[in-house]
C-alpha cells in the first residue's frame, strides 16, 4: 500500500494527468499482482459472458418482419393485401417491403412511364384491364408495353397513384 502511494505521488509530480487516468486502486492492484504473488482476493480476474446480451440485442436482423395488423388502413395509407387472392387470371405480388410494385420512371427528361412489376399469370388480361381503367380515368387510349419474359407492364404517362389505388381496391 505504501509502495502504491509512493508511485501515485511520483505520477502527480510528473504532471501528465490527462493521458493515463486510471483509478488508484486498479493500478495499485495490478502492480501488486504482477510483482508479487496475489495476496489480496480482489486482484483475481474473472470472465463473464452475461453482459454479452447487451451486444446481441444491438446486432441487426436480416429478415424483413411481417407488418403489424391494423384495423382498416395504416396511418400512412398502407393497406395489407386481401386474405385470399382475388379470382382474376393474373396475380400481382407485393414487394419485399409489402408495397404494391408500381413505379414511375422518367427518362430523357420528358419520357414518363409507369411500370407494373411482379405480375404472374395472364399478363395480357391485366393489360386489357389497365387500359380500360385508364381510359375511364383519362379519356384516351394509352400505349402500353407488355414484356412476357420479365412479366412487366409499362404504360406511357405517370399513373403510379391511380394504379396503386386501383390494384389495392382489387385486393392485390
Amino acid at each position, binding site marked *: 500500500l505504501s509502495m502504491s502511494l509512493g508511485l501515485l505521488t511520483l505520477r502527480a509530480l510528473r504532471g501528465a494527468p490527462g493521458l493515463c487516468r486510471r483509478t488508484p486502486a486498479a493500478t495499485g492492484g495490478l502492480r501488486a499482482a504482477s510483482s508479487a504473488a496475489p495476496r489480496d482476493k480482489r486482484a483475481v480476474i474473472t470472465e463473464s459472458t452475461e453482459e454479452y446480451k447487451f451486444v446481441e440485442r444491438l*446486432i*441487426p*436482423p*436480416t*429478415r*424483413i418482419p411481417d407488418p403489424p395488423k391494423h384495423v382498416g388502413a395504416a396511418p400512412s395509407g398502407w393497406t395489407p393485401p386481401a386474405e*385470399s*387472392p382475388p379470382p382474376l387470371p393474373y396475380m400481382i405480388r407485393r414487394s419485399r417491403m409489402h408495397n404494391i410494385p408500381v413505379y414511375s420512371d422518367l427518362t430523357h427528361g420528358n419520357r414518363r412511364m409507369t411500370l407494373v412489376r411482379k405480375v404472374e399469370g395472364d399478363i395480357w388480361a391485366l393489360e386489357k384491364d389497365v387500359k380500360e381503367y385508364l381510359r375511364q380515368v383519362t379519356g384516351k387510349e394509352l400505349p402500353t408495353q407488355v414484356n412476357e419474359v*420479365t*412479366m412487366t407492364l409499362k404504360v406511357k404517362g405517370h399513373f403510379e397513384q391511380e394504379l396503386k389505388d386501383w390494384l389495392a381496391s382489387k385486393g392485390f
Partner: protein
Amino acid sequence: MLRFSCLVFSRGAARRFASSFSSETALPPNLRLPSNLVDPDRLKRPPPPEDSSLPLIRKCDAALPAHLSPVRTWVDTLESKDSEPLGLTELHPDVFAVTPRLDILHAVETWQRNYKRISHANTKVRSEVRGGGRKPWKQKGSGRARHGSIRSCPPLKLNCGVSHGPRGPNSYYYMLPMKVRVQGLKVALSSKMAQQYLHVVDSLNIPTPDSQYLLELIRNRHWGESVLLVDVSQEFSENILQATANLKTVNLIPAIGLNVHSMLKHEAIILTLDTVRFLEEKLLWHDERYTFLYPFKLPYSDFP
C-alpha cells in the same frame, strides 16, 4: 434468266408457306433430329397424382404464397436397383417452379465461365521490342520513307512491335448482383424439375461401393446419361465416394457447391431431402431480406 430463277425459287413456296399457317408446334419437314434426343422411357413416370397412397414425407417449412401450391415429387431410394418410391415430398414453388428465365440462366452461365478468366496473352509494344533505338537512315535525302526506328511497323523489319495488341495479363472479373445469381439457381432447379430431370432421394447411402451398381441403377430408372448427386454435408459415406470415384459422368457435390454450370452440364440432378430443406431455406431468404448494412460474412442476428 429472271423468269427461270423466279420459277425455280417459287417451286416449294406453297410447302414453305404452309408451315406458317399450321400449328406453332409443327417442325419444319427438312429438320433432322437425333433419335436419342428425348428418352421416352424417362417421361413414362408422370408426377404423383393428387390421390396417391404413398405417405407425404416432407412438407414445406417456409410459408407458401396464397395463390401458389407446392410441387409434388416422388422420393426414391438408392438402396436397391429397382425399388418403388418411398413416398412423396412437397417442394416450394418459389424455388422449384419459377418462370423459366433463359436469359438469366445464360447470364449466370457466362458469368461463371468468365469471371475467373485471366488471359495471359501479351505482345510487345515498339518500345519493348529489343533494339530499334537508332534512326535507320536520315530524315531527308535518302529517297525512302521517313522512319524513326526499325521496330515501328512491318515493312521495316518483321519483328516489329504491335501497337494495339493484347497487353499483359488481363482480367475479365465482374460480379452479377447477388439476387440475379440466386434467381439463376432457382431457374435452373425449376427447369430441371419441369423437364423431369430432378429426382429426390432420402439419402445417398448405397449398399455396395461398386460403380456398376450405380450405373445399372441409373440405367434402370432412366435418369439420363450424366447424374449430379447433391448432399448437404461435406462428408459423404465411403460407399458412394468409392463408387463415384472412377466414374466420369456421375459426380458428387455438397449443397453449397451447387451451381448453374454443373446443373446444366449434368442431365439429371439427384437431391436428398436434407438438401431440399437447405436449398429452400437459403434461396427463399433472399426474397425477404433487407439489403446489407455490412457484409453478410460479419455476424447478423438471424442469418440463415
